[in-house]
C-alpha cells in the first residue's frame, strides 16, 4: 500500500501534545516527534521504543579484554626476555594493559551502539523542516494516501504553523 509522509510543525508544546492526542484518538499511534532539544521522555505521549544499548559496552569490554590479553601474552611469549627477575607472563603489567583494552573496547562499542540504535547514519533526511532546530516541534506520520487530508485537517485544528507532505514509496 502506498503511503505519504506528513509533517505538522507546531510552535508550542501544548499544540503538539494536542495534535498527538488527536492522532491517537484517530487510531494513529505510530508517529515520530521531532525536536531541536531533548524533551522529557513521553512528553508528547509518543511511544517509547526499547533499545539494547546496555549490551554494547559489555560485549565491547569482553572483546577489548580478550584482545589486550592476547597482545600482552603474545608479545611476551614471542620475545621471552627476563626483565628485572620478573616472570615472562607478569600479571601486574598485563592487568594494566588489559584494563585499558577493556575500557577502550567498552567505550568504542558504546559509541557504535548509540549510532546503530539511533538508526544512524541515514543518507536521506526524509520529510523534515529546518525550523525544528529553531524550536518548532514536528509531528511526522506515514498515512495511507487517502488519509492525508484527515491528518492535515487534524494538525491544522491543533493550530499547526505549517503542514508538509511528501510521497513515500510502498
Amino acid at each position, binding site marked *: 500500500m502506498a503511503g505519504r509522509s506528513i509533517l505538522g510543525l507546531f510552535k508550542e508544546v501544548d499544540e503538539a501534545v494536542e495534535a498527538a492526542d488527536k492522532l491517537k484518538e484517530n487510531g494513529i499511534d505510530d508517529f*515520530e*516527534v*521531532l*525536536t*531541536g*532539544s*531533548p*524533551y*522529557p*521522555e513521553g512528553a*508528547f505521549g*509518543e511511544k*517509547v*521504543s526499547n*533499545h539494547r*544499548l*546496555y549490551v554494547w*559496552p559489555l560485549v565491547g569490554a569482553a572483546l577489548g579484554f580478550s584482545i589486550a590479553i592476547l597482545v*600482552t601474552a603474545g*608479545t*611476551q611469549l*614471542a*620475545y621471552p*626476555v627476563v*626483565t*628485572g627477575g*620478573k616472570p615472562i607472563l*607478569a600479571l601486574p*603489567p*598485563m592487568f*594494566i*594493559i588489559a*584494563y*585499558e*583494552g577493556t*575500557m*577502550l573496547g*567498552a*567505550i*568504542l562499542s*558504546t*559509541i557504535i551502539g*548509540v*549510532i546503530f*540504535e*539511533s*538508526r*544512524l*547514519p*541515514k*543518507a*536521506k*533526511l*526524509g520529510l*523534515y523542516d*529546518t525550523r*525544528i*532546530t*529553531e*524550536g518548532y516541534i514536528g509531528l511526522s506520520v506515514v498515512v495511507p494516501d487517502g488519509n492525508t487530508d484527515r491528518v492535515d485537517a487534524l494538525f491544522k485544528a491543533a493550530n499547526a504553523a505549517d503542514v508538509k507532505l511528501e510521497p513515500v514509496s510502498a
Partner: protein
Amino acid sequence: MQQRPALTEIDINRDLLRPILATPMWFYGLLMFLGIFVAAALGAFAWAINHGTGVYGLNRPVMWGFLLVNFVFWVGISHAGVMLSAILRLCNAEWRRPATRAAEVLTVFALGTAALHPLFHLGRPWRIYWSMPPGYDFGRGIWPDIRSPFVWDPTAISTYLTSTALFVGLLLLPDIAVLRDRSSGMMQRVYSMLSLGWRGNTRQWKLQVIAGFLLSALILPVFVSVHSIVSWDFAVQIAVEGWNATIFAPYFVIGAVHSGVAGVISILALLRWMFKWENYIRDDHFDALARLMIVVAVGWFYFFIIEFMMGFYPNEEPELSLRALQLTEWPFNAAFILFALTSFFIPVPLWLFRKVRRNVALMFWTTILVNIGMWLERFLIIIPSLMRKQVLTFNWGSYNPSPIELILVGGSFAMVFTGVLTFAKFFPIIPLSDAKEGEIMATEIRVGKVMVPAAYREE
C-alpha cells in the same frame, strides 16, 4: 541569587553559532598570530630531527628535560576536561551546561599536544610505530616489553584520546544538525555528512542522553588510570630517589584535576570575553567552579605535603640532598617559592571571597597563576630529581634548556589554543542542545515572598 535570562531556541542558535556563521575578523588575526608560534615550534622540531637530539639541553644525568615536564603538564590539563564534564553530568549539576564541551575540547587538544612531546623528545618520530601493536617490527624481532611503563603510557594515553575525541564527536551530532540547517553551500554539505542524518526524534534524543551518562561513567575510570600510569613512568623507577614514591599516582591525579579545572576556567573566561557570552557563561558558573577549585586545591595540597614530608622522614642522604637542592639552591629555590605561592597560597585564599569568585578577570588570572604553579611543580619533580639521581656527588649534574626546547614549550601553548579556537570556528563550543534543554527545564518557584530560579530534572 542566580540571574537567569530567559532565552529562546532562536536566541541560543544566534548567540552560540555566531563564531561559526559570522566569524569576526579579529578571530582570523588571532589564529594567524598563534600560527606564528605553532610554525616556530614545527620549525624547531624539524631542526631537532635534522640535527639530532643534541640540540636539546639534555646531558647526563638529566636526560629528561623541559619537553617531558611539558608532557606531564599537558596530560594534567587534559584530565580535568573530561573529569569535570563526566562528574557534573553524572551528578546532574545544572551549572555544567556551558562548561562541558569546552572542557572536553580542551582535553582533546591538550592530550593531542601532550602526545607530541615524547616524539619531540625521542627525536626519531618515524619509529613511534614500534610501540604500537600494528607496527611491531616483526622482521627484526623487536617486541615491546609490556613490563615497562613506557608501553603502559602510550596505551593509556591513546585509549583516553580516542575515547574523548569520539565522546565529543558523538555528543556533537545534534549541534551539527543545527549547523546543517543554518549553513549553505559546501559547508552545508559537510555538516549534512557529519550529522549522519540526525532528525531529532525521541529515540535519538533518548540515546544521546543515555550516551552522555554511560560514556561519562566509562571515561571516568580511564581518566583516573591515565594520570596514574603517567605517574608510574616516574614512580616505578627505583633508581631515581625523588620519584620512587607510592603516593605518586593519587598525587598526580589530583594535581591534574587542580591544573585542569583551572585550565577550563581560564578557557571559559576567554570564551566569554571573546564572544560576549555573558548570558551563557554566567558569574554563578565561575562561582561554582571556584568552590570546586577550593576543594580540589586543598586536596592536592594535602597530597603535596604528604609527599614532601615523607621524603624527609627516612632521613636518607640522597633524598635530603634532593630536597636541599629544591629548597636552597638557585634557581630551584625561587621556582619552589613561586610554585607554592601561585598554585596555592595566592589563589585559594582569594577564592574564599564571593566577590573574587564572581569576578571573571580575577578568576582568569588566578587560574593562570595555578597553571604557572603546576608547571613549576612538574619541573621541580623531574629536573632536580635527575640532577641528584646518583648517590656520589661527582655524578651530579645540571640542566640548561636549549632555545629549541623553549620554542617547543612555548609553541605547545599556541598549539592547544589554536586547536580550541579552530574547533570553535567550525563547531559550537557551548553545547546548543544542553543550553536549550536548560531553558526547557528552567522555572521559577515562589518561596514566601520571593521568586527563586529552579530547574526540573528527569529521573
